[in-house]
């Protein structure tokens, strides 16, 4: 049995985790960590956990024997520190992406996990999403031929995040692009739009990538949607075929007396199940896929190139 501690997750993540755990054998959640007592209690109730703490350090000091691994959510700025803490006490680490605020922080996590001989998995909600996984499977099977044009939109509500959220979102898209093409781009051109003058980071980031063998990608990250719903969509044109995740966000119609609304048939639970199942297998089999951490490092490098492109207002040629 793999026993998990859920760290700094919001209550909706806890609800989803309950649903995901019901679909898995050999995985359970035994502890929750959150600084906010109400959220912590709510999560503990949802997950029916026995152990809870206000901080990971506290949980590790008091109940270290009650869990084998941590799932770290919370602010990106705190993830690396918590991952190192967990690794140093022999806990396997499932780190929500983006895993850290910069390359060096991620490097330190990687080294800590290697030194402790624990597994480190960087969770990608995009890679594990059923529609995107199906797209990648079609590509890997050769049905789509060579990847030609990847287009991704990731648009979020204005309240979605912390500082630099749009860059962090862009990083997830860059990681996805490298994963799909199976290689790093050779060219990058970035454009942004910023009109929320109280924010120091862009409202919108547009990334244009060129890959070897004529591949190309258009990625857009926005943090300006009203309401609470996010919009993420992906399509891939290959040399012999194409795959389109639904551009209309898997919406269904809700017809009511006063208005018609669109409601989403989500992929959240299957995405989380896929993540947890993969993590369980890695821990059980004691394996770390070598390419995964490289994806995150590549994304950090591309993020730096994007900032350079913005400053220079020109495309950046990247190392081969």
């Amino acid at each position, binding site marked *: 049995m793999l026993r998990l501690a859920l760290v700094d997750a919001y209550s909706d993540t806890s609800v989803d985790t309950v649903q995901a755990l019901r679909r898995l054998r050999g995985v359970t959640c035994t502890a929750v960590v959150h600084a906010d007592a109400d959220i912590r209690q709510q999560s503990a109730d949802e997950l029916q956990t026995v152990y809870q703490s206000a901080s990971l350090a506290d949980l590790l000091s008091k109940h270290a024997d009650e869990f084998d691994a941590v799932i770290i959510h919370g602010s990106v700025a705190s993830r690396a520190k918590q991952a190192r803490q967990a690794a140093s006490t022999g806990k396997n680490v499932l780190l929500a992406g983006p895993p850290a605020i910069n390359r060096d922080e991620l490097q330190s996590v990687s080294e800590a996990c290697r030194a402790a001989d624990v597994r480190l998995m960087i969770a990608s909600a995009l890679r594990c999403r059923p529609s995107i996984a199906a797209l990648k499977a079609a590509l890997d099977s050769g049905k789509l031929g*060579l990847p*030609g*044009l990847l*287009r991704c*939109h990731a*648009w979020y509500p204005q309240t979605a995040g912390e500082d630099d959220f749009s860059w962090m979102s862009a990083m997830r898209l860059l990681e996805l692009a490298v994963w799909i093409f199976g290689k790093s781009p050779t*060219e990058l*051109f970035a*454009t*942004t*739009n910023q*009109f929320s003058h109280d924010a120091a980071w862009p*409202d*919108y980031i*547009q990334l*244009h990538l*060129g890959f070897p063998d*004529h591949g*190309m*990608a*258009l990625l*857009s990250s*926005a943090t*300006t*949607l*009203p309401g609470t719903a996010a*919009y993420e*969509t992906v*399509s891939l*044109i*290959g*040399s*012999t*075929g*194409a795959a*389109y995740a639904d*551009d*209309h*966000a898997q919406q269904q119609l809700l017809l009511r007396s006063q208005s018609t609304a669109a409601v989403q048939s989500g992929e959240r639970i299957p995405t989380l199940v896929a993540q947890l199942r993969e993590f369980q297998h890695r821990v059980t089999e004691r394996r770390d896929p070598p390419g995964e951490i490289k994806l995150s490092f590549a994304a950090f490098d591309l993020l730096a190139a994007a900032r350079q492109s913005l400053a220079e*207002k*020109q*495309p950046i*040629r990247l190392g081969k």
Partner: protein
Amino acid sequence: MPDSANLQADRPAYRAAAVSVVKHDYLAKAVAAHPQFELVVVADDPTVPDWIHARNQLFADQNRIPYIRDVERALRDYDIDVAAVSSEAERHCDLSIRAANLGVHIVQDKPMSTRVSECDRLIEAVERNDVKFLLWNRNLLPAVIHATELIRSGEIGEPYAVHIDFYFSKDAGPPKGSRRPGEPPLNWLELQKIAHADGSDGGVGVEPMGELRVEGIYPLAYITQLTGQAFERVFARTAAMFHQGHADNDVDDLATVSLEMTGGVVGTLAIGRIGAASHPDIGEIKISVLGRDGALVVAEARPEVGVYYRGQPEKEFRHRRVANENDFLLMDHFARAIETNGDTLLNARTGRMITATVEAAIRSGKSGSVEVVE
């Protein structure tokens, strides 16, 4: 957006000539179908090759009108008000200029030209002769009208970013990699002549044209209509990914373009002739707009209906567009522009700007640099 049809128009108001009907003949048919226009003659130059004469003659016969091998004489003798120009792209502007010089209004097929200098000549002729010019477009498709109305009514606030997916899934000759060693490169014009059979010969002409040149006007015209902004700088990646003819003639069948516009608006375009295997219908065409107060994702194909049946031919589209009045509405709009001396939906200056944007994107695809729209 256009109003409903002019109910007073119980007889044709304008006499029209089809000035070269080389490509698929949707433009000339659209002119002929509108009640305010009467197509009375087909015209072309006497020196054009025999295959062009043959196509012109066939269209004339089908419409029971004469074919005159002298453009100027046809426009004068038949008292023509409107020329519908649908020749090879490299002759578009020249034919339109000659019509303008005779005081004839012009509806011209896309692309506007393969050369920006030709667009400049046309602008001069249209403005000097005070005639109306409409570059054919898809801006009055139901979904595009809807998107425009939503934006103009302020539903998503001021648009700040636009993305268009514009993929046509028709094949364009043999697939890339099919040419055997020792075989000569495919001839562009011959390929286009063959493609005429299924109406996918939009790039007909001696000069090879990639998808950016052939179809780029459509999504770029969407963007100008949706944002009201002009293109300033572009960065593009281009490739011949799918078709041997495109590879042999060094033109794109897949491209991505980053767009920087006036007013700080930015955008991207994904465009390609991606092959019939890559989509069950005519292609994936989507409009995505981010505004300061919301966003819009529009499927250009809607409204549509799905039709499936036993024995359905493999290449027959399963989903068919319905309630598409683009042809009628464009001609209706053009008639009103003439009547009211108003501007047209896609005039020569905007067409020129779009042509310059396409040319800048093609240059960028080759240079790897950001190019200024000149």
